[in-house]
């Protein structure tokens, strides 16, 4: 086109020059100006947002579509390369272009045409200022992103915990338990926040009969079990843990179930209310308050009412536990616990140790 214009200008210049030389010679007929090019028109309602994972459909009406090669140029936000999507005739009338499934944070596009001479025509937005179709993350998406950032991508954990408490009693008979658990946790960080599997053992001694009969001997109770656990994120700051355990106790096959609700985030300040019941070792219930205000320590205090290890001497086994966890390294955490409480008679001490490795 530019060449044509230049040539035309040259011809006109030559003609003018010749006329000047010839003096009175008549002016040559003016060359007709080329008609302006035909331009397409594209109208559409630009989408402002799109759901993640679904193609973005652009519905348009186009006038003079033959005049230009019309394309939608798009790219995912963050990409550098533009890609083209052509408009196609819709069987329902009009035109449509389909942009591939959008992912967060969205995509940007503009509509351009190119005429026969190769001239680019902007119909909507531009490469310099494209239109953005947002793909807004859901609440769970955003929480997951936050969790992954917090965890540094380490979504697995192996933990070992051992706790025990000596309740004592007025008959000087042993009444204590020791519990150990090895847990493998995989964090999904979605509604199902984590899944876990593990093995555990409880071993304890407790008076054989209740206080009304002045017990004179004790029994050895225990449970060896495997368990599966789900942690559900019911709300940004409410978690629900559900655990089912199968194993064997001093009496044979036994099963146990545990559930707890965590108000707040388990890794921040929170309150936990939970309970557990084992067929042969009895029920337990607890309330735990955790606070994160003394970093790098994470502290907690729990009130635990328990029948472990299958005590019958009294149903009022209560202790207060105070625990501290400390992150030794980015992957390694250690925990310690001290407890104080009684079941029958004066209160006694207990404690626990644990460690967890994230990877």
């Amino acid at each position, binding site marked *: 086109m530019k060449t044509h214009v230049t040539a035309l200008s040259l011809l006109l210049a030559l003609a003018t020059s010749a006329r000047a030389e010839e003096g009175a010679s008549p002016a040559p007929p003016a060359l007709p100006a080329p008609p*302006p*090019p*035909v*331009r397409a*028109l*594209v*109208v*559409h*309602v*630009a*989408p*402002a*947002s799109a759901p993640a994972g679904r193609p973005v459909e652009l519905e*348009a*009406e186009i*006038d003079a579509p033959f005049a230009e090669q019309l394309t939608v140029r798009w790219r995912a936000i963050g990409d550098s390369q533009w890609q083209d999507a052509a408009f196609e005739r819709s069987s*329902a*009338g*009009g035109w449509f272009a389909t942009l591939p499934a959008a992912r967060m944070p969205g995509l940007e596009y503009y509509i351009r045409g190119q005429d026969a001479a190769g001239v680019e025509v902007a119909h*909507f*937005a531009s490469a310099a*200022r494209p*239109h953005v179709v*947002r793909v*807004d*993350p859901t*609440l769970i998406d*955003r*929480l997951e992103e*936050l969790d992954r*950032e*917090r965890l540094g991508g380490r979504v697995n954990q192996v933990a070992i915990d051992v706790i025990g408490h000596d309740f004592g009693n*007025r008959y*000087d008979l042993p009444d204590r338990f020791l519990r150990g658990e090895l847990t493998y946790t995989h964090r999904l960080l979605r509604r199902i926040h984590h899944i876990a599997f593990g093995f555990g053992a409880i071993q304890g001694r407790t008076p054989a009969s209740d*206080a009304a009969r002045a017990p004179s001997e004790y029994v050895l109770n225990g449970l060896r079990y495997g368990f599966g656990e789900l942690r559900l994120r019911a709300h940004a700051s409410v978690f629900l843990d559900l655990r089912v355990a199968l194993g064997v106790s001093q009496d044979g096959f036994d099963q146990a179930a545990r559930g707890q609700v965590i108000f*707040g985030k388990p890794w921040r*300040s929170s*309150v936990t209310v939970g309970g557990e019941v084992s067929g042969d070792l009895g029920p337990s219930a607890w309330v*735990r*308050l*955790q*606070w994160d*205000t*003394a*970093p790098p320590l994470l*502290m907690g*205090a729990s*009130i635990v009412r328990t029948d472990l290890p299958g005590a019958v001497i*009294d149903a*009022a086994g*209560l202790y*207060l536990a*105070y625990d501290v966890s400390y992150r030794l390294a980015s992957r390694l955490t250690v925990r310690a616990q001290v407890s*104080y*409480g009684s*079941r*029958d*008679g*004066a*209160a006694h001490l207990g404690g626990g140790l644990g460690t967890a490795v994230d990877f």
Partner: protein
Amino acid sequence: MRWLLIVVPALLCVTVALASAEPTVLAVDGEDIYVDLGAADGVGAGSELELLHEVVARDPQTGAVLRDRFALGRLRVVKSGERLSVVVAEPTLAERVLAGDRVRLVSPKRAFVDPWVAQVVASRAAAAAPGPAGPPGPPTSGAGPTPSTPRTGAVVDHVALAREAWLDTLGQPPERRIARWQALIEADPKSPYRRVIENEIASLTDQIRQREDALAKARSADDGDRDPRIAALVAELEGAGALGDVLAVAPLARAIPNRPIELGFLVRQPAALHRAWLYVRPQGEPGYRRIELVRDGDAYLRGTIEAAAVKEGTLAWYVEAVAAGPDAEVAPVLGSAADPRRIEIDAEVVEAPIAAERSHVHAHVDYVDFDGSLATGFDQYYQAEIDFMYRFLHPVYAVRLGFGTLSGTGGPRDVIDEDPMGTCFDGDGVYRCRQVTFSYVYTEVELRLRRNVALMLRPQAGLLTTDTSGLMEEGRCRGADTTDCRFSTGVGGRVRARFGEERGTNLVIGVGFTDGVGTLLEAAYHWLPHTAVPVQLSVQVTDQPVPENFGVRLIGDVGWRSLSWFYPSLRISYQARDIDHAGVSGGFAMNFDW
């Protein structure tokens, strides 16, 4: 489709082979059934055929082969050629149709006229009486006008000339088609198709004019030409959903905070709008912010709501515009200040930094002596408590967990005071005092009713041991000697209300009760005469450690905060059940703030 390429030639072969045979089903292709009957047989669209199934059986006695035909149902002709037809059957019958089945025409035979021949006849009639005619179609050789002989003596084959011209026009632009038809008329001015051809030329000329008009508008950059085109396109687009009278914008119901929102408005008549503004008001802001919309592309206005305005809550917005023209006024065109459009902005999702001074651990030991005899008396106790508290602020202001022990001796004031031996025996020689130990745990929830009003609710439970033996021996009821020892579960609770600032000056009024231990009514005044000196003055009314006579305690507790996270305090108390049954004692506390 590929299958058809095979079937159709095959059909042609079969057609030839069966030309003289009975009508037969030639092939079945999906729902289409091909039969060898066509227009030449008086069959056309709408005709009905009967499907016949031939049964062949052998007579077991004579061995003769017996054949018979049974009508299975009717088929309907959907289209016909000269020799073949496509028929369809009801779905249940269609499944039973096989190639080779016989058919017979059951509807009356019909006569079909070659349309081209009919057109030629019509053309002849039109030559005598001019009138409109349809576009030319392909002339068919062997039918139509006979060749004429012009004056030169050469025989002119009108049909062949017309067919040749028609073929030349196929796929050509209108200008060339007109030229070709004009050339035919010049070459064969007496063509019997002349009237039809002239009509075609007129039609093509009209098409060219319409095309040129459309192109002229499409070339025009003038708003007056573009706006009607845009308006027409938008009207067609309206099928996709309701669009505004002036602007259309895609709905955006929700968005995440702190991310700019880009809006693209489709304008029905861009030339009619002079300027337009987007007004936005984040939740909590008193007024709207104004953003001028920028023209873009063919028919658009665009604007961006900056990230700072996209805040948690509801984002209200509307658009105002002013039309072109000297007298035009600004008017809302999408929503309005009074009735704005809304975008719900999600809550912020961030890992909040660790808040300082949210947790408090409090431990205290308090020795209470009501009769001034200290350890040798019968009305004193000690109470130790450790309390963990975290301030969540919302929706529960704070939660406390604690463990405590209350242990001591108590009994009727008169008996204690009047026993000259100081052994708590009454006039009948009955020991009336009791030694109790109550180990308990509790959880307390603090609700903030108003800025300066808080309500604290505490259920508590524990193991209560009561020794009524009067032996006053250390360790009794803890070991095997449990004579006169009672063990029970003590359940109780406490309710307190605080008026004022929790960490400033405040007044706490409360009441508590524990089964078997007693009742406690209290009022405590806390203030900071100096930032490093927290002071608490309390008055308590209680019958602890055993529910007998109420007494009053006056307590002063003074702390010294030299560290931001820890301060100890000392307390001194005076308590009395009457002016002769009184004592002074004290205690200490430790407080940790993180």
